[in-house]
């Protein structure tokens, strides 16, 4: 058997795409899933193949995080492609969608190609490219969707900034649909959130901080849904945070509109009251909202109204966070903690079955981004595999693979983590 083979032996395969949860050995060859069967590891012809012992572990399609800020180019003091993808690998994430709000923004085919090339060279996991929706992410002129697609982009987004011009958003959605790209929208009406820093509620009031009302998100969710109904072009709503947005999404889906959405681990697990004092590691946009909002997100994730878990991994070096809260940067890291949090706080608590958990973290993102050879362990699929040890206990604490350490979950004891992350048949990470 050639050296480019790998056997994952003794684990329980959980592949929601094949509706499979069973003891299986998985054979990888030349970067693809070659075979999957019970007892494969005992075959004599495979005795010389490199193997990963996965007894007691889950073997799942490689996780896909469809909302990640790698900061390169331009923000290399916060994160690089190398460090961000190492963080992904450690978190069991085999593919990340890199958001284009870098410096400069990825708004041209040439930049998309450069980023993809750099990622192939420096990336520990697959880096999928999201192009900017508008030139310079200024919300004024469309980027070249078709040529960005040719250059390798799989989605378009002005993430980090709202697209305030509804006419432009309509054209962008139509154009992206024609080119076969998903539009991902950061839903925020800047005229409602202006200058705000925390959720508009009792916690922000007690702290004396300007606040962001839930309506700043929901106004744009409703607009996007209307534009989706008008154009029938798919739209993906990033990092939903409040119950009213969830309700709008649920009703749009009932009407059969091609709307999808993601939620982050921090919005699923934390709320406005969880910020200790003025700790900027709890400051992100959209902000942590109320208890009822968190509950609505959990229910929507469980019933499939929210399609995917994505981290909105947003690294910032300490100098951008150790500031008075109003001056501190928005965002938290998430790649290294998402799986452990989901296992400990969602699956173990019964909020989400393990099959749904893997579906929301792998199959759904693959489906939404049109990645036909990912999100499944079918024969012939890309050999992106996450081996999960559901019993491994660990504590969230530095050192992280990420260059930054802005997590609200520091010190938390978690149960379950990636034992190994296999990307294209190669071991990107092994515990």
């Amino acid at each position, binding site marked *: 058997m050639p050296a480019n083979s790998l056997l994952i032996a003794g684990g329980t395969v959980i592949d929601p795409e094949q509706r499979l949860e069973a003891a299986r050995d998985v054979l990888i060859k030349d970067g693809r899933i070659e075979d999957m069967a019970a007892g494969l590891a005992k075959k004599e012809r495979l005795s010389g193949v490199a193997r990963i012992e996965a007894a007691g572990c889950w073997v799942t399609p490689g996780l896909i995080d469809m909302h990640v800020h790698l900061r390169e180019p331009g923000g290399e003091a916060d994160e690089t492609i190398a460090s961000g993808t190492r963080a992904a690998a450690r978190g069991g994430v085999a593919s990340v969608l890199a958001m284009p709000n870098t410096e400069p923004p990825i708004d041209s085919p040439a930049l998309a190609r450069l980023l993809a090339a750099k990622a192939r060279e420096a990336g520990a996991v697959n880096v999928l490219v999201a192009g900017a929706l508008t030139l310079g992410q200024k919300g004024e002129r469309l980027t070249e969707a078709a040529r960005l697609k040719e250059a390798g982009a799989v989605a378009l987004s002005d993430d980090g900034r709202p697209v305030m011009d509804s006419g432009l958003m309509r054209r962008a959605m139509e154009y992206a649909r024609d080119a076969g790209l998903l539009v991902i929208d950061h839903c925020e009406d800047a005229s409602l959130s202006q200058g705000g820093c925390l959720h*508009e*509620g*009792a*916690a*922000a*009031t*007690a*702290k*004396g*901080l*300007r*606040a962001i*009302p839930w309506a700043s998100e929901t106004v744009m969710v409703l607009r996007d849904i209307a534009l989706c109904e008008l154009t029938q072009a798919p739209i993906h709503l990033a990092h939903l945070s409040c119950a009213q947005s969830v309700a709008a999404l649920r009703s749009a889906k009932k009407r059969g509109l091609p709307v999808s959405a993601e939620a982050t681990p921090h919005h699923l697990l934390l709320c406005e009251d969880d910020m200790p*004092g*003025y700790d900027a590691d709890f400051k992100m946009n959209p902000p942590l909202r109320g208890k009822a909002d968190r509950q609505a997100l959990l229910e929507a994730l469980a019933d499939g109204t929210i399609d995917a878990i994505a981290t909105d991994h947003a690294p910032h070096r300490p*100098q951008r966070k*150790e*500031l*008075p*809260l*109003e*001056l501190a940067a928005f965002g938290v890291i998430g790649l290294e903690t998402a799986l452990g949090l989901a296992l400990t706080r969602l699956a173990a608590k019964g909020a989400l079955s393990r099959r749904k958990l893997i579906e929301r973290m792998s199959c759904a993102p693959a489906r939404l981004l049109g990645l036909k050879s990912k999100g499944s362990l079918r024969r012939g699929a890309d050999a992106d595999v996450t081996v999960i040890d559901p019993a491994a206990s660990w504590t969230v604490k530095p050192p992280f693979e990420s260059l930054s350490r802005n997590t609200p979950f520091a010190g938390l004891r978690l149960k379950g983590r990636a034992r190994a992350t296999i990307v294209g048949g190669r071991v990107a990470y092994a515990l």
Partner: protein
Amino acid sequence: MAAISWDRKDLLGLETLSSGEIEGILDAAAPFADNPRSRGKALSGRLVAFFFSEPSTRTRSSFEAAAKRLGADVLGLSAAGSSAAKGETLLDSLRNLEAVGAEYLVVRQELSGALEPLASKLKASLLNAGDGCHEHPTQALLDVLTLRRKKGRIKGLRVVIVGDILHSRVARSNIHALTALGARVTVCGPSALIPAGIERLGARVSHDLNAALAGADAVNVLRQQLERQNRNLIASLPDYAGRYGLSPERLAGHKDLLILHPGPVNRGVELDSACADGPQSAILEQVANGVAVRMAVFSLLASWRARHAR
């Protein structure tokens, strides 16, 4: 007795103070308020430094008078134009003052909560003289002291705070102190100036000043700022004054209502001159009590420092 129950290096806000601690400060202030010429030695030979990155005349002069009457040397540093003051810069500035020998740092700046993380990094005692829209503890203490002296108690009093609650650190600190001591607080103002969830701080909400004043023992009138008009939080100052300004007509039938105002007064906007200068006004008494309260705070912090000196 009060001095023994006080166990804090700093005074950052009133939210985390117990009713006993607040009463301890008021009790310590009483003798200073009884005798406005009283002096003390609690700060004898000590250096008190001021670091104000927002303009202030009365708070600063009140702190300064209090420090001097307790025997302190004072040092002022006004950080003009430091609206972009960053946390590290503020910490550096305060460390410099500490290096000069200051044991008490009286700080005002425009960012809510900016002092909290710095307290543990400084040996000096930090006194919050106003942080953004968060807290202004000594202002609320002097308001409460004035109320207590005029009304004889706090428990059971009905106090209305009217005006721009959204941006007011005075309102927040007052709510914390008054509710801790058993008063019933109603905040009153236009919807745009009442922050979400203020009820959870223990205040009732009203948008109708006449209704709010019914049965009230005191009204604390906040300063209305013209700049709010530019952000459409109010339509105009006259429009605001018509609904929320305190006029003799509105005062009719409320002859026992005590009027407080943190100053400086916008005469004719939130408060008519007749009300500001009338018999129900406690505004100048507030100013006098401000010195007493700040002397009390300095004294308590000084006793803490004496107990914790090596």
